[in-house]
């Protein structure tokens, strides 16, 4: 029972992290059709900002958290201004490849100017504690991750349903031109999408730093690959799909970890991806995706 609860919490915490990152991808994709491969580098930039701040004398973990989240939001907007705006109206493939290029550039800038090796960041290690509840040993980090992810998602849903900008973002995911006719500025909607996407990545970054205690140039990349998979499972561009896909991915991974014999542990990724590819054979549009025939007019 103990073991079961522990694994359940594991799955929920992993799932929450994937959901946060996948939601960030989905928000940007749904509005401007950009497959943002550089999303992981938003996480990396956030983490390296904390690294630099600590090197410059930052001591307060609370400030470090704030800094991580703000840096992620700012760098996401910066990516849009510098790299993605020139290809805004280009075909999906062009945007995808641009983002892939941005990702490579940023990763290698850290290699070039910092180091390819992991750099220790211990300022947030305090979050990573064990709570003892009766006979149970619970990871505080995992509980917090779950709670924060849930609160964040609720806040995002409220924003999208209550604020005018949120309404405009939802509307823009289907018909950007008509949203502009309502007097909502295209740049504002897109900047908001990137700010939200970056903030979600920054929140994920806080937990990643706390768990790993170090940063590496490619720390965001592999995570974002999984988040993409979560998006594909859920149906690309669907926000609910991204959140659900992330959760499902967490459960698949932990489930495989439990089910696979020790000597096959290294093959966990292989099995995870194979499972997902198998799923896509039966539901090419994902679990919650709309089956859209190309050229369907929104009525």
């Amino acid at each position, binding site marked *: 029972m103990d073991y079961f609860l522990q694994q359940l919490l594991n799955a929920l915490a992993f799932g929450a992290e994937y959901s946060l990152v996948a939601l960030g991808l989905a928000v940007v994709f749904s509005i401007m059709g950009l497959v943002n491969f550089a999303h992981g580098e938003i996480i990396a930039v956030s983490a390296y900002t904390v690294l630099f701040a600590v090197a410059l004398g930052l001591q307060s973990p609370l400030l470090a958290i704030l800094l991580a989240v703000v840096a992620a939001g700012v760098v996401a907007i910066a990516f849009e201004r510098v790299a993605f705006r020139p290809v805004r109206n280009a075909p999906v493939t062009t945007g995808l*490849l*641009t983002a892939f*290029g941005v990702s*490579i550039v940023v990763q*290698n800038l850290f290699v070039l100017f910092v180091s390819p090796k992991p750099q220790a960041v211990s300022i947030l290690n305090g979050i990573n504690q064990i709570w003892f509840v009766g006979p149970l040993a619970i990871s505080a980090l995992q509980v917090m991750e779950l709670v924060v992810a849930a609160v964040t998602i609720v806040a995002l849903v409220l924003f999208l349903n209550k604020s005018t900008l949120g309404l405009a973002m939802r509307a823009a995911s289907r018909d950007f031109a008509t949203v502009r006719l309502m007097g909502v500025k295209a740049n504002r909607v897109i900047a908001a999408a990137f700010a939200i996407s970056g903030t979600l990545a920054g929140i994920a970054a806080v937990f990643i730093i706390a768990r790993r205690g170090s940063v590496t140039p490619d720390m965001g990349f592999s995570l974002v690959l999984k988040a993409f998979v979560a998006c594909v499972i859920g149906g690309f561009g669907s926000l609910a799909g991204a959140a659900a896909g992330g959760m499902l991915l967490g459960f698949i991974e932990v489930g495989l970890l439990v089910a696979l014999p020790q000597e096959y542990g290294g093959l966990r990724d292989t099995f995870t991806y194979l499972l997902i590819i198998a799923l*896509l054979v039966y539901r090419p549009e994902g679990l919650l995706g709309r089956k859209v025939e*190309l050229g369907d007019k929104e009525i």
Partner: protein
Amino acid sequence: MATEAPAAVRQQARTPSGSGRSLARATLGGIVIALPVLVLAAVILWFAPTYYVRLATVALVNLIIVVGLQTFMGNSNTAHLGHSAFVAIGAYAVAILATPLNMKKLSIPDAPFGLSHVVLDPVVAGAVALLVVGVLAAVTGRIIARLSGIAATIVSLAFLIVTHSTILNWTDLFKGNQGFFGIPRVVDIYWMLAFATLSIVAARIFKDSKYGLQLRASAQSPQAAAAFGVNAKGLRFGAWILSGLICGLAGILYAYFVGTISPRVFYFHQVMMTLAMLILGGMGTVTGAVTGVIALSVLLEFIRGIESGVTVAGIQLPQVLGLSGVALGAVIVLSMAFRPDGIAGRYELDEQIARLFSRRPPASDPSTATVEASRELL
């Protein structure tokens, strides 16, 4: 769906009349594209030191990979990030099949299926390796062909990760992280040149064939192409298999050239590099693939010189790791922003030459014409 592709191939076999001339023209076009490569190689062979011959041979491997990548990506207009998986499969297949028994006893003594007791002639092993690549391409192609552009890209990436992680972790068969050594080194630059030319011609023939045209038309305007009865899924499936086979061939040749392979050679770095080459040259044409490989190979060699620490005015500068990565990424970003059609643009080399010599622009790309015409109607 996928079963319609072989039907299409059969149809092609049944209709030789009329296509004979365009086949000849496509073949000739392919040879024209390969010509600069052959000339460059000849210059290097005659004038340059041995080090550059080796570099040129590795560049030819990249050329074959990029041509393979172009076959799928250029015609279907779907980003493909998993092509290195086929390179890896081709390379490891010949490594397992053709490595001499005494070497295998050292490297993979516990290989399953009795593979540690089998050794094949390099040519036979190569043929079997291509068959393995073809089968895996058919399996993955069935999925890829059904998916939309983005999901297909993600799945191609997932395929790369699955392949890499399998090779890395199934140590009994693949020897894992350590290098797989002792592969017979039976390929030299001449063989490589021959196969590179062959790949270029094959890619060009496919591009100019009815199927290539239809696939490009359907990538540009799915509805219009569907209205003309184009079977987009079957065509994507076919292009994926051809692309996989060419990439697999590159892997086989690479293994036979260097003799030692390891999984990380066929991972993200190779994907990034070959992708940047194709984008820089222009993914719409085979000429673009060739141009990009030549241009970026030269640039990367130059950067590698700086990275390993150059001596300026007697001072040895430190190593600057990551510079080539930054350059590769920047090449992709800048190409996409300023020249999405790449250096070569929309026309093949022979078409550009023909344009130079005739006032009249050549018959515009039929796929574009079809789409344009159907757009008018819609």
